[in-house]
């Protein structure tokens, strides 16, 4: 636990250092090009930039603990508000992606392990390697051309059809369009929201699916070699049950850990996916900030995402302890 605090502290230190490495004067950037020297000086004092670095870090930490990540250079609105406002859209995307990745990746891995070294196995392994090698931004564009331009099956981007959002606007409950539409029985909006969710989440799910299926396959292969599988077979248990119950429960650990690591990928992957699919989430928020050199936003997002990542991994560790009785009771 103390270790966790240390890590978080370290994260803050790193982001703080980065934000002070920025070329140019943050105060001048804050005011814009037409500011006069006295104004810049005033803002410098205001922002605490005239104090020695360690003091600045203390102020930084203090602000952090109050949830203050600074203000956007562009809009002058608090970074935290911007992040929180854009967060649900990204979360909806990431959750859909990880669900798809687990639902496709795990059975694929189990099947591949079951039919080790057959054509099915080789094909699915190739599929997994390909998934892991795809640049997400490229895949997104290919999907757009394929499914929007040529096949006309899915929309090119956005979260919801503009017409639908005007005629059947979604009541905001959780910020998740699909959930909210479902909860308020808003069928046209639900249809539109789901249709818009498909391409982006499948694209984001590609890399995790590949990783998860590879990990599941290799762990399953090892588990299937174990003696207790032989015992179960000698007892007359069916093959299906052996693979998906007896073996999988043993193999699921590393797969879950991998899923946790995928979260890191998805945090950054979402930048590209949102950019290409015009998805109004954290990624779009941050990429705009990158183009405009809006450092407080960039640093704030980095810090927050890092903290989120650490938390998710912690949760995964807890889940693992539940799934494998040896960890808790051992």
């Amino acid at each position: 636990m103390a270790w966790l605090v240390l890590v978080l502290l370290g994260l803050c230190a790193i982001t703080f250092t980065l934000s002070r490495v920025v070329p140019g004067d943050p105060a001048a950037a804050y005011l814009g090009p037409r500011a006069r020297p006295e104004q810049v000086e005033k803002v410098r004092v205001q922002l605490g930039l005239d104090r020695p670095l360690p003091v600045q870090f203390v102020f930084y930490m203090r602000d952090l603990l109050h949830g203050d990540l600074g203000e956007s250079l562009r809009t002058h609105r608090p970074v935290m508000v911007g992040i929180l406002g854009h967060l649900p859209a990204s979360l909806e995307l990431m959750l859909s992606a990880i669900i798809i990745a687990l639902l496709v990746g795990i059975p694929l891995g189990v099947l591949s392990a079951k039919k080790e070294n057959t054509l099915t196995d080789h094909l699915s392994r190739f599929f997994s390697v390909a998934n892991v090698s795809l640049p997400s931004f490229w895949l997104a564009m290919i999907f757009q051309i394929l499914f929007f331009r040529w096949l006309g099956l899915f929309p090119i981007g956005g979260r919801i059809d503009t017409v639908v959002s005007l005629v059947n606007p979604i009541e905001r409950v959780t910020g998740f369009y699909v959930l909210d539409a479902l909860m308020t029985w808003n069928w046209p909006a639900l249809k539109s929201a789901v249709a818009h969710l498909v391409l982006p989440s499948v694209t984001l799910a590609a890399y995790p699916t590949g990783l998860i299926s590879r990990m599941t396959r290799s762990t399953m292969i090892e588990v299937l070699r174990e003696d207790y599988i032989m015992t179960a077979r000698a007892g007359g248990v069916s093959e299906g049950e052996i693979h998906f119950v007896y073996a999988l429960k043993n193999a699921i650990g590393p797969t879950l850990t991998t899923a946790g690591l995928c979260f890191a990928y998805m945090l950054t992957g979402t930048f590209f996916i949102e950019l290409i699919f015009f998805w109004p989430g954290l990624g779009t928020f941050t990429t705009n900030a990158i183009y405009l050199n809006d450092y407080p936003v960039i640093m704030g997002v980095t810090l927050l995402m890092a903290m989120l990542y650490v938390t998710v991994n912690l949760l995964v560790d807890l889940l693992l302890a539940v799934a494998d009785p040896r960890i808790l009771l051992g």
Partner: protein
Amino acid sequence: MKMPCNERLGKRDFYKRDYLRGMNLILRNPLTTFGLGIILIVIITALFAPYLSPYPDQGRGFSNLDERLLSPRLKHPLGTDNLGRDILSRIMYGARISLKAAVIVVLIVSSIGVPLGLLAGYLGGKVDEVIMRFADMILAFPSLLLAIAIVASLGPNLINALIAISLPWWPWYTRLVRGQVISLKEMQFVESARAVGASELRIMFRHILPNSLSPVIVQATLDMGYIILYLSALGFLGLGTQPPTADWGVMVSDGREFFLTQWWISTFSGGAIFLTVLAFNLLGDGVREALDPKIRWKFQRT
């Protein structure tokens, strides 16, 4: 003082035998050979781009505004981009950037990561703790995110992008080397070296270091694919190579404007990234399988 003979025999001989047997096993798998083939093509293209590419000037960045946005045809097999430059040539020149980047990043990462891992593993104690804690802190960040933040702070150009990719990457190597060193330092040949009077420094560099490099080399080769992927991601965001230099990621981004109609710009450049990364991954899988003793033992007890 010369070291006694028997010390030289150590894990180095083991690895040599394994390499030869491994090469045989690697080449047996068609997918791995395919990956190796693609990588060789990329390397040759990168080295000889000025001689191989049909329009080297355009590859380097000179525009040809008469032939903008031409679809793939005999004269331009992969089409031209919005400045009339031949895509095939640009992709070939892009290979130079990608490979250069991969090699440079590997060098930077190794020069930071390996010595730190050596120190942490060999000296142990407080040194080990400090180094590993620092490494873990960096690893707590999603690496691409950290890279983006670093480039955003330093300013977008290729060199900063390479630094930005290297900084989140070195901790993996530190961990890798540290693990190796820890298992090596308990071995007999270290005892005998000490008994003969070698200094700690000498033991570290002359005995332990060479023997712990093999997994690093393997890992570095496999990582090259991902380094290229990261660089192209940064390029796509405009945070890496700057125009007019040909860079696959930048090309994909450039093509985005015209993507729905002039699809060839982004498709082929992105395809180059995909194939290269795929090739490295296939090679990596093949190498890993070839060196894994467990997989070769299919026959169980009687």
